[in-house]
């Protein structure tokens, strides 16, 4: 394990500059911080311009439905210092709005369009077609935890003829042939 000097410097620079940033050095080459959603563009711009985190690795969204929150995660990489920085913030799930950052990294536009479509998070000032992956979607955003995949598929698709009752295939075969299911196979049967 190294001394983690660069990692500690990065963390210190961020926490000293921004009051609302706090975090830890996870391990070698890994720094993780949390901050407020309001100052996200400022923190990201500072990390990019001053701390040389020029490479935008990834951006993700996690649905914490039990806390009524969406967590937005920005993952940056510094090609100079070889450090990975994860910046996280939470927004209200009822009214999910956050500023867009595609003026800092152009490719963030694609991530934001996907998160808008899959989670219903609105990015202020985001330009780009509403539809990215899904076509004619009329349900709640599908990556949300309260989206019921089974209910959606039973509403939009039909069962194969003869399988409407969703009976176990072994039961159907035994009924048709008049034979009993062997004991050893019963524990695998759904009925």
């Amino acid at each position, binding site marked *: 394990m190294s001394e983690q000097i660069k990692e500690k410097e990065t963390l210190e620079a961020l926490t000293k500059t921004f009051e609302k940033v706090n975090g830890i050095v996870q391990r070698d080459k890994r720094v993780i911080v949390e901050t407020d959603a309001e100052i996200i563009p400022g923190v990201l711009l500072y990390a990019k311009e001053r701390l040389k985190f020029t490479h935008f690795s990834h951006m993700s969204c*996690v649905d914490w439905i039990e806390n009524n929150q969406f967590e937005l995660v920005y993952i940056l990489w510094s090609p100079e210092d070889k450090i990975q920085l994860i910046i996280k913030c939470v927004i209200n799930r009822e009214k999910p709005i956050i500023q867009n950052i595609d003026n800092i*990294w152009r490719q963030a536009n694609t991530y934001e369009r996907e998160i808008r479509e899959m989670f219903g998070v609105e990015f202020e000032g985001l330009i780009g077609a509403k539809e990215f992956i*899904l076509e004619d979607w009329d349900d709640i955003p599908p*990556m949300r*935890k309260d989206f019921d*995949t089974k209910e959606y598929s039973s509403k939009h698709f039909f069962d194969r003829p003869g399988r409407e009752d969703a009976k176990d295939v072994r039961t159907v075969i035994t009924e048709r042939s008049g034979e009993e299911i062997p004991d050893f196979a019963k524990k695998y049967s759904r009925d």
Partner: protein
Amino acid sequence: MREKTTTLYLGPQHPGITGNMMVKLQVAGDTIAKATTEVGYLHRGFEKLMERRNWLQSFTIVCRICVPEPDPNEENFSRAVEEIEGRIIPERAKWLRVLTLELGRIASYLLWYGGQNGSAGLYTVGQWSVGDRNYILDLFEELTGGRVYHMYIWPGGVRRDMPEGFRDKVLSTMDYLEKRLDDYDKLMFDNAIFQKRAQGVGIINKEKAIEWGVVGPPLRACGIASDVRKDDPYEIYDQLDFEIGLEHGSDVWARALVRRKEIRESIKIVRQVMDKIPEGEFYNKIPNPMKWKIPAGEAYVKTESARGEFGYYVVSDGTDKPRRVHVKGPAYVHGVTLLEDMLVGANLADVSFIMNSLGTCPPEIER
């Protein structure tokens, strides 16, 4: 006077890429004025599926995210789970993982040889390279039981040890491929048609390359030495002796030269693995998979795939199922924003040629 433009739809099926993706082009004559990537033909909802399955069931899904090179997916997912859980894996497993990753890289580059030349009308290279790729797939079949999807690298190590006599087969295949690469040089790199099509085409702005999110061979073709294997070494890459391909042209030709060099380096790595691989266990057994819970935590891990940085962001909430698995493939940037920018001003005939040089792979854009 404004020049009139026509709208052309390239795709969803076309020779530029593996998979289905459409590029909507506004063309003036045969010059492209505007390009828009439209995806949505391959969305299978893998990330949502994983949220309803336990950790080991999810492992069988991840390899399907990228068809030409599934191994980085398996390795990323396994390493992310191990990092969150704090599981140590045996040393031999790490070497076996690198073996599959590098064999996968060679197979993927060979497939790319075919795609890149196919989009220039040089079909012979593709016939040869897909044939040669089959020898790698034979090795995979013997090691893992699967030719394309291996489901070999799993949390805790790898699924099987090398079978008897496997080492000799790997080494003889590498010897064959190394000789064969000289033939590809004659057929492809010495070919005036390929040179003329590739040189000076599809140039990426070197100053902006990192900021735009360019990764992998296209970034190294801009003269920037960036490779996850070197910058943030995983498994046992820090114990291996290899170089990364570096070119300065930043055009399609430079990208081809980078891959040409790296395929030789991968052969070198495979030989080193075969020489140095330690004896011992290959799997640190996980608990009953049906009751296996991962402590709450998160990890972003990445590997260097044949097309560039491949990342997995995995979140666990302490239950037996992933809270969130988010996949980032290199094509997510290469195939959308970068491609849209690069195609402006390009010739219509070069579109699929440029797409191929970036390694665009729609399955990982949509997942």
